C-alpha cells in the first residue's frame, strides 16, 4: 500500500518536472519569446550548462531562488527557453538588412524595396555580396563557388536568417519575388511542404538538388 502511494508520488513528481509535450510551432511562437523576455528581465546570469537534465533545471527555476517567484506558466516558459534555446549553441545569423544604395550583385536592382527577399553570400577573404533573391544568388554561386563561408537566406514564413545549405526551396509556386519566378526558402521540410500545398508549388528541393539549369530555366 505504502509502496503504491510512494510510486504514485514519484510518478507525479516526475510528470510535474518532466519535459512537456508541446508542438514545436507553439514553442517557437509563444513559449520561447516569453521565456526570452523573462530571461532578459529577471536572470540574465543563469548558467544553463551546469544542469544535466530538464527536470533538474525546471526544479531550480520553480524554486524561485535564481529568478524570483514565477507563475507555473512563466516558469515553464523560462525553463523550456533555457533548456532548448540557451543550452544548445545555436548559431544565430544577422538580420539581412540593406541600405538604399545597395544593388543586387547580379541584376543591379536596388534592394531596399524588397527587404524580405535579400540574400547574402560571404567569402573567407571578408567579402560579402547581397542579392535581391534566390535566383540571382544561385547564378552568382554557380560561378563563384571558391572560398564561400556562409550562404544566408531568409525563411519565407518567419523572415529569420538561415543557412541556405540547411534550407528547403519550393519551386513553381504562385508567390513571385522581385525578379519574377523564385525559389522560396524554408527552414525545414515541413513548412516547405505546407507552403507548396497552399501556394501550388511544383517541387520541394534541398540546396544540393538545385542545378544551374533549373535556376536559368526559372528566368524564362
Amino acid at each position, binding site marked *: 500500500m505504502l509502496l503504491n502511494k510512494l510510486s504514485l508520488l514519484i510518478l507525479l513528481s516526475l510528470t510535474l518536472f518532466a519535459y512537456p509535450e508541446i*508542438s514545436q*510551432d507553439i514553442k517557437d*511562437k*509563444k513559449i520561447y*519569446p*516569453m521565456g526570452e523576455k523573462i530571461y532578459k528581465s529577471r536572470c540574465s546570469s543563469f548558467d544553463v550548462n551546469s544542469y544535466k537534465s530538464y527536470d533538474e533545471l525546471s526544479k531550480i527555476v520553480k524554486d524561485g531562488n535564481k529568478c524570483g517567484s514565477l507563475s507555473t506558466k512563466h516558469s515553464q516558459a523560462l525553463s523550456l527557453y533555457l533548456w532548448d534555446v540557451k543550452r544548445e549553441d545555436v548559431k544565430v545569423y544577422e538580420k539581412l538588412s540593406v541600405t538604399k544604395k545597395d544593388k543586387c550583385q547580379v541584376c543591379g536592382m536596388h534592394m531596399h524595396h524588397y527587404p524580405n527577399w535579400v540574400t547574402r553570400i560571404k567569402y573567407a577573404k571578408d567579402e560579402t555580396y547581397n542579392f535581391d533573391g534566390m535566383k540571382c544568388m544561385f547564378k552568382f554561386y554557380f560561378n563563384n563557388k571558391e572560398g564561400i563561408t556562409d550562404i544566408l537566406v531568409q525563411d519565407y*514564413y518567419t523572415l529569420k536568417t538561415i543557412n541556405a545549405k540547411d534550407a528547403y526551396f519550393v519551386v513553381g509556386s504562385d508567390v513571385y519575388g522581385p525578379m519574377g519566378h523564385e525559389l522560396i526558402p524554408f527552414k525545414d521540410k515541413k513548412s516547405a511542404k505546407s507552403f507548396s500545398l497552399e501556394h501550388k508549388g511544383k517541387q520541394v528541393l534541398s540546396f544540393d538538388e538545385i542545378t544551374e539549369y533549373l535556376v536559368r530555366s526559372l528566368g524564362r
Partner: protein
Amino acid sequence: MSLLVALLTSTFFISNAMKSEYNLILDTYPDIIITNQKAMRDSTIDENLIDTILNIKGVRSVVARVWGEYEFTQSEKKFMLIGKEEFESYSNPTINAISTIAPDSMLISVGVYEALQKSYYSEYFNFIKSDGSLKKISIQKGAIGSTIQEKESLIVMSKENLKEIFNYKNDEATDLAVSVANENEVAFIAGKINTLLPNMRVVVKDDLRVKYENIYNLRSGFFLTIFIITFFTFFIIIYDKASGLNSEQKHEIGILKAIGWRVGDVLNAKLYEGLIISLFSYIVGISMAFTYVYVLDAPLLKKIFLNNYDLMSDFSINFSVDYETLALLFLLSVPIYIAATIIPSWRVATLEADEVMR
C-alpha cells in the same frame, strides 16, 4: 496674397496632421484581429484558440487581448481600458513599453488623470463591476500614451483585474491579435483562419487602413474645396496683373525711359519689386499659418474634425513640417507672381518713351 498663402498652408498643415495621426493609430494595430460573433455582435473569445492559430505556418505570435471601454459618468468621458500581462508582446508600442504594473494598480494617461482629479480621485479609483460591487485600483505614477486618442483616455492594468471589472470568465478575452512575420502572407493567413473558425470575424490591418482613409478622404474633400477656391482667387489676381498696366504705371516706366533707363534696367527694377513682394507675402503667409495652426491650435477649421468619434474626440495638432507642401506653395506663388509683374512691364518698356507718355 499672404492671406491666400496662409489659408492654403494652414489647411495643408491640418490635413497632414490628420494623416500622420491616423498612420500613428494604425501602427498600433496588429496584422490580424479575430473577434467572436454571437448574433452578429462582438462577443468574448476563448483564449485556448491561441494554440490552434499558432499551429498555422507563417503566424509569428498570437496574443489574447483584454480591453474595452468604461464610462466615467462624472465627466461624461469614456476611458479605454487595456489589460497587460507580464512578459507578453503587444503590437501597441505604448503597451509594450510598460515594464511592470504593481499589483492592483493601473497606469493612466494625462487626460484620464485630469478627469479623475476633477472628481478628487488622486490615489485610487473605484470601478463599478457588472454586479454593482466596487473594485478599487490604485493609480501608479507616470503618464502614458503616444497617440492623441491614447493621451486622452488610456488606462492600462493587469489582465486579471480587468477581467474582474468586465466580468470575464478565466479564459475569456476580448479578441485575439495575430502578428504575421511576412506581410505578403497576411491575407492568405486571414483566409485560412476564416475557414478554420467560420463563426469568427477576421479583420486585416489593410481593411482598417481603408476605413480610416475613407473617413479621412471625406474630410479632405472640404480641403480640396478650399484649395480650389483659393487657387481660383489667386489666378484672378495674377490674370488682372498680367493683362496690362494701368496708365499711372505706364507713365512711371515712360518717365524712367525718358531719363535714360534702358529696357534691362526697367526689367531689373520690376524683377526686384516682384521678388520682394512675393517673397515677403509668402513668408508672412507661412508664418501666419504656423501661428494659426500650431500656436492658436486652428480654431474654426479644427471644428470640422470634432464630433468625429471614429478618429478622435478632440485633438491638438502635433507639430510636423511638410517640406513638400511648403515647396509646392513656393513654386506656385513666387515665380508666377514675378512673371505676372515682369511680362506687362516688358511689353511697355520695349515701346518708345514718347509713345508711352502720350
